[in-house]
């Protein structure tokens, strides 16, 4: 899923400072699963904003609304009748959602309430960690199912570097060395000999480096 973190309250307050009437817009997909931008979080943020405004002696009219997804036209349409009555939309979706809502409503500012952090997993309750950088050219079959792009701090294709120590990355002792994980996994698969296979210089054109990407499925287009 796409994992996010809510922006600091002061930053959100500064963003919405010029407005008296806003929609706080949640998303029921990834950001609900990682407890940052779903219906519940819309309620919490809205209450905090009302309270904060009250303390400052200013009013704010907030419409709390959550969409099934903010990355699909059909759901974004659900707020069309409300939009003219408000001055800004504070979206709690990922960066894709924020932008797609903005594209649908060019006449109103759409502001981000969260920082989109990574594509990751719920490792434990309350702990999300990164697994994929969407490089567009998966090599997990070569590296024991562990991604060197996302999990090595240097994205080394032929790691580990000389900074790997006790299974930890040189960047920080809290960070696990991705290549240590790859080697352990290859070992448990009985494939440690694959370690010596040279992985050639990567084609990054399928990654962000090729410019904004798109996927076209002719079989699905109408």
């Amino acid at each position: 899923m796409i994992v996010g973190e809510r922006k600091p309250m002061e930053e959100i307050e500064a963003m919405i400072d010029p407005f008296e009437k806003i929609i706080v817009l949640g998303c029921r997909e990834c950001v609900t699963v990682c407890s940052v931008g779903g219906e519940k979080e819309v309620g919490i943020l809205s209450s905090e904003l009302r309270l904060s405004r009250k303390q400052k002696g200013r009013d704010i009219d907030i419409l709390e609304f959550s969409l099934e997804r903010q990355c699909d036209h059909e759901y974004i349409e659900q707020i069309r009748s409300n939009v003219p009555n408000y001055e800004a939309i504070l979206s709690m979706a990922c960066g894709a959602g924020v932008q797609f809502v903005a594209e649908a409503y060019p006449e109103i500012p759409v502001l981000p309430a969260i920082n989109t952090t990574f594509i990751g997993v719920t490792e434990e309750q309350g702990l999300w960690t990164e697994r994929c950088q969407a490089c567009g050219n998966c090599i997990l079959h070569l590296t024991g199912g562990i991604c060197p792009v996302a999990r090595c701090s240097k994205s080394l294709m032929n790691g580990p570097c000389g900074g790997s120590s006790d299974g930890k990355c040189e960047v920080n002792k809290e960070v696990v060395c991705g290549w240590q994980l790859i080697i352990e996994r290859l070992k448990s698969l009985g494939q440690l000999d694959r370690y010596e296979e040279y992985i050639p210089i990567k084609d990054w054109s399928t990654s962000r480096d090729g410019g904004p990407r798109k996927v076209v499925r002719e079989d699905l287009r109408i």
Partner: protein
Amino acid sequence: MKSASRLEKVLEKGEFAVTSECGPPRGADAEVIRKKGEILRDVVDSVNVTDNQTSVVRMSSAASCFILKGMGLDPVLQMVTRDRNRIAIQSDILGAAAVGINNILCLSGDHQVFGDHPKAKNVYDMDSIQLVHSVKKMRDEGKFIEGEEIKGVPKLFIGAACNPFADPFEIRVPRLAKKVWAGVDFIQTQCIYNLDKFEEWMKGVRDRGLHEKVYILAGVTPMKSVGMAKYMKNMVPGMDVPDEVIERLKGVPKEQRAEEGIKICIETIQKLKEIEGVSGVHIMAIEWEEKVPEIIKGAGLYPRPQV
């Protein structure tokens, strides 16, 4: 010969090679490089010039190498893949070869969080092994990474680093094998303080015959103080400093500890010389270049062979 490198000539002749290191200044003062070059002239075969080591911005390795080259030294251009993509790297290689630089050391580089610009974006378009492979392709096939022909082929003697003390230990020999496969000519290792572990790694290297395919230059760094030894032990990732080294330094009065550090370094070199498969020594005296001649003379490695 693959290049016009003095280091290559020394090694090809079967002589025990001596290289050292010159850290460029945090400014544009060429005099700093010239002073260090003057100290190292004639006492070493080649001089590495670090590339923004520990991710701290310094004078460029290529420009510093050029200054040293002008003084008649044989510089080794250190090149990290942290800051440059394949376009910049290949361009710098062509430029280095054009001004007479004959050696390159291919590294991934310390992560930028260690340095003075931790908010920087890193590049890592390629890793150190892919860099070795790319330089070899440029030199031996006369082709760029994408296969286009190079007019005016860069003839570089290709080096890489090895850290026998990093984890996991079991892949440290296979990792060298991978670098050998990629086309490395010489290796300079991480600083050696734990000789037992180094010997164990070298045994693995010899068992696979890798010492016959690549020249291994054993790395040493003299300790200036107990504080430095502790810092290296605890703060530098992948560094193995046994307690005996720290105890030995502690065992002498404070004002004699730097001298003791030099002694340990000389003794280490003498032991390294006896290990089968070690072709030379790489002395990294960090901001202490003035001690390098003393170490080399103390280890009986002076004068250097004429090649």
